[in-house]
């Protein structure tokens, strides 16, 4: 499924957060949103998935989502958002129970996604027993269980330590290689952006406008062999962002 973001502006009261955002999200592409903190990138993600209503403009689905998709626009959150009173299995089952599926069908789906994320042995563990990386893996499994047409990922690796982040990034790449999912990926980490993004959208500081869109044509699984090129891209991105980040850092939050 493709999405089209048309003329989106968003205010919180008098505070202008986003301004005139236009963006196309193409099938099978990972679009990374980067920008200084407080630039509205997470807000934009919430607007895309309908968790918030834009003040102006709209987000269009450009085609019908595939029939087997239970929840076309599916989020993965920075803080995992796993219910601590439900086991891994039950956390996934939570998002399937409201669809007209039999217990058996639910079980088949859960077994399948647990296998795909290598979590089968942890089905009955509680979230508190899992490391951060495992928790995010469960959240990914939960997202996969509803066969999303577009994954909306809000800094999914930011709460993890750098080693776990590296491992999970590899997982995401191989997952994308297998499933060619469409995603919008919000991050403040430029290294993640150049590793995972087909298209990198740089937002300015508040009010966020699109400052630059960078496309990277290297195949995701090949990127490890193009370190120099990626480093160059990353440097370029940082040059664009640095000024913005400096000013944004010094802004008073409620000014």
């Amino acid at each position: 499924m493709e999405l089209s973001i048309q003329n989106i502006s968003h205010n919180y009261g008098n505070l202008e957060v986003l301004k005139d955002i236009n963006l196309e999200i193409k099938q099978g592409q990972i679009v990374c949103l980067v920008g200084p903190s407080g630039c509205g990138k997470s807000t934009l993600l919430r607007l895309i998935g309908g968790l918030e209503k834009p003040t102006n403009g709209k987000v269009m689905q450009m085609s019908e989502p595939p029939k087997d998709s239970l929840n076309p626009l599916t989020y993965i959150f920075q803080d995992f958002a796993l219910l601590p009173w439900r086991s891994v299995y039950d956390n996934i089952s939570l998002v399937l129970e409201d669809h007209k599926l039999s217990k058996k069908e639910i079980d088949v789906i859960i077994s399948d996604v647990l296998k795909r994320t290598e979590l089968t042995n942890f089905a009955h563990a509680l979230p508190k027993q899992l490391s951060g990386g495992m928790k995010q893996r469960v959240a990914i499994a939960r997202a996969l269980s509803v066969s999303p047409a577009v994954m909306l990922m809000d800094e999914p690796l930011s709460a993890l330590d750098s080693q776990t982040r590296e491992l999970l990034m590899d997982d995401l790449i191989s997952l994308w290689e297998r499933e060619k999912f469409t995603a919008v990926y919000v991050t403040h980490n430029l290294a993640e952006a150049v590793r995972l993004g087909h298209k990198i959208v740089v937002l300015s500081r508040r009010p966020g406008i699109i400052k630059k869109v960078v496309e990277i044509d290297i195949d995701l699984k090949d990127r490890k062999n193009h370190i120099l090129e990626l480093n160059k891209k990353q440097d370029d991105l940082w040059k664009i962002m640095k000024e913005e980040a400096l000013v944004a850092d010094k802004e008073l939050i409620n000014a």
Partner: protein
Amino acid sequence: MLNKSKKEVSFRGGGFVPKPILYIGPIVFVVIIGFLEWGTSTGWISDLTLPKPSGVFQVFIELYDSGLLYKHLMPSLTRLLVGSFLGITFGIAVGLLIGLFNLVRAGLLPVVAALFPIPKIALLPLFVIWFGIDEGSKYALIALGTFMPTIVATYAAIDNVDRNFIRMGQSFGLTWISIVRKIILPGALPGILSGVRISLAIGIILLVAAEMLGATYGIGAYVLEAGSLYDLERLFAGVTILSIIGVIINWSVGVVERKLLIWRN
């Protein structure tokens, strides 16, 4: 660095961590009671000030042997259970409505704020007129007394449920009822249970008040009667029973909490 200035870094961390120490609690009890027993039997503490612990125990044994203990305990426990069951059930229900619906919140919060600080004991005569001098007024007093704190604990617990969980539920297209049943209620359960704990303690306090009017049997009535006769041994025997009821109830809530909230610790 000079050799003679060499020394081990001294330890300065540690402490400030609550740790359970077994046996200390019972020992404190034994010491206090032993001290009182010694004081009262030597005459160092006059028996007008405090009763002899062994005398209190004696009264308790007599109470048990004569079957009066049962006769006092049963009506009191029934009043406590019926009253606090009504109060807590309706309290949770109203607390949920306040927590979930802004209209109910706007309408009822001022009412709750106005009624909460009223000492319910002051309303006992009113309840006697409304519900009769028999069990009705006693149930009503305990129910109202446990109702208010349960409401406040319940809606506060709902307000404290992590909004990210609710956002998550919405993002997966969960129905409203699913979000309430599977996210808000279990998330609010710890807060609701600690509210229940407080409500039950208040229930015991109000039990004594409720038995002020029109009760022949009941631990509260027993204590009040002993108090008005300055029969300190019976007074203390009654108070001890109330305290034991409180400890048992508190412990039972603890058991329920551990059962229902395994996911927490």
